[in-house]
């Protein structure tokens, strides 16, 4: 559970970062007071795009608007011609660019999850859209429609969520950022490297706390599972423990046997957890690739193992103590 949830957190953030990089911009300008993973709609004027285009060394600037749908799914509006210029355009796997106002572009993950093909229809924002094209994932968003259509549907005319900026030479990025920060007080201005590095568990409000709670839950569940299974094992093996004690086994010897079994249980649990994280990733990629993204987190295997072992040893302590001090005569008489 822990490995899957950490993998999900990282995977979804990595997916956001990959799609941001896929735009091909060098700089991102966001509205004041917004978080890195913004699902809010459009607090910034579209006039900002023109302002940015006029700046020295800026070759392209394109605004986009992100609007939340359900869960973590969003739809993005962008002026496609301008977006193609900055990004090199989408790679169409089926169909082609949007030609009408009721058309939508979806990426292959969303298409797979919803059984969509070019020419199919999909219900979103209380209207029916025709899928103009299915594009390769990893660029801007999973669902893309013209910017003016999204602005109209969400009653946000002339508003956007962020501006993607490309400069003439990567060496000029720091200079442009410094200039923009000077002129746009309060607006977060990030280089693309900075933005993608900031998209992490620590910078998403509440995510670190969420993971901590999940880890604590895993420890408690692990403790209870081991406690109950070891307690049951000690009860079931009362007679066997009595035999060992009659043969001269010390309390430490009995404890050693139980803790060795606990260690095996924790190791087996860790290995199963690792295998389970591969299974959940496969299930997510098969059934919900657009909604969720999970990565395998090998750097967490040792942490998860240590947590499992700690919980298991604490869980085995009382049953172990009980077994170690069992009276051999009573234990041998146990049926």
């Amino acid at each position, binding site marked *: 559970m822990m490995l899957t949830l950490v993998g999900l957190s990282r995977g979804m953030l990595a997916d956001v970062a990959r799609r941001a990089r896929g735009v091909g911009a060098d700089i991102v300008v966001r509205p004041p007071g917004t978080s890195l993973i913004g699902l809010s709609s459009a607090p910034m004027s579209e006039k900002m795009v023109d302002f940015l285009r006029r700046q020295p060394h800026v070759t392209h600037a394109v605004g986009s608007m992100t609007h939340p749908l359900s869960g973590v799914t969003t739809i993005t509006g962008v002026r496609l011609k301008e977006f193609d210029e900055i990004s090199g355009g989408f790679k169409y796997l089926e169909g082609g660019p949007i030609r009408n106002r009721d058309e939508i572009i979806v990426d292959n993950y969303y298409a797979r999850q919803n059984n969509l093909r070019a020419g199919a229809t999909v219900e979103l924002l209380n209207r029916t859209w025709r899928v103009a094209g299915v594009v390769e994932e990893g660029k801007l968003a999973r669902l893309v429609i013209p910017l003016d259509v999204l602005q109209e549907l969400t009653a946000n005319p002339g508003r956007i969520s962020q501006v993607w900026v490309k400069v003439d030479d990567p060496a000029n990025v720091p200079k442009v950022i410094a200039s923009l920060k000077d002129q746009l007080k309060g607006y977060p201005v990030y280089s693309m490297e900075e933005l993608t590095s900031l998209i992490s568990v620590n910078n998403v409000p509440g995510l670190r706390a969420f993971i901590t709670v999940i880890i604590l839950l895993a420890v408690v569940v692990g403790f209870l599972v081991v406690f109950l299974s070891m307690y049951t094992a000690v009860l079931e093996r009362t*007679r*066997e423990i*009595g*035999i*060992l*004690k*009659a*043969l*001269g*086994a*010390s309390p430490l*010897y009995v404890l050693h046997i139980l803790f060795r079994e606990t260690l095996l249980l924790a190791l087996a649990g860790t290995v199963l957890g690792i295998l389970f994280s591969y299974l959940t990733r496969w299930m997510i990629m098969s059934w919900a690739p657009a909604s969720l993204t999970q990565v395998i987190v090998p750097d967490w295997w040792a942490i998860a193992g240590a947590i499992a072992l700690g919980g298991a040893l604490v869980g085995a302590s009382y049953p172990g103590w009980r077994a170690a001090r069992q009276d*051999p*005569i009573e234990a*041998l008489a146990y049926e």
Partner: protein
Amino acid sequence: MSEEPIIRVRDLRKIYRVGEVEVHALRGVNLDVPRGEFLCVAGPSGSGKSTLFHILGGLLAPTSGTVIVGGHDLSRLTDSERTALRRRMVGFVFQKFNLLPTLTAADNIAIARHIAGRNHDNDPWFREVLELLGIADRLHHKPSKLSGGEQQRVAIARAIVNHPAILLADEPTGNLDSQNSAAVLKILRDLNERLGQTILLITHDPVVASYAHRVVHMLDGRIVDAEP
């Protein structure tokens, strides 16, 4: 016999407290067992023979009196010292065999060596004992695949694997048919005669008692007579 007896019991008393009631299980038992003797303690249920068995085996502390086994006064030993005594000096054979069901016969024997810290010993004497017990070809079977007689022979092998000073057997034929009972008793007598193993056997069956060198009878927590 001038040699010091391997078991010396003097005025042994054991009182169990059940709530407010005191139950006098042993009421001043005196007993000497010379090294190499095959002794039978006979008596009806409730006579105190099992309590005597448990005290001599270091499973139970006496209330008063002196119990010396192999030079160690059990009445002065702590729990952990009695545990060590069981490991080194006493072998148990129980009526219900008490083999560990998940282990093979070989592992049931090996675990006694492991507990005694002798698991790396290569003991040629033990091969001879396995032949004597007739279980050399049954060692890789689990208890559930062995007959009652075979299980008890594995239990005997486990009891003597660490060369105990005394072998305590509590109704060892109680769960066996007459044929297997005779086989097990013959093995115990062979162990005594050929290897000099001191054996203290508890039973209420006169036929079983007849295999011993000497029989003492218990009644109401006392030894009431002794046959030479």
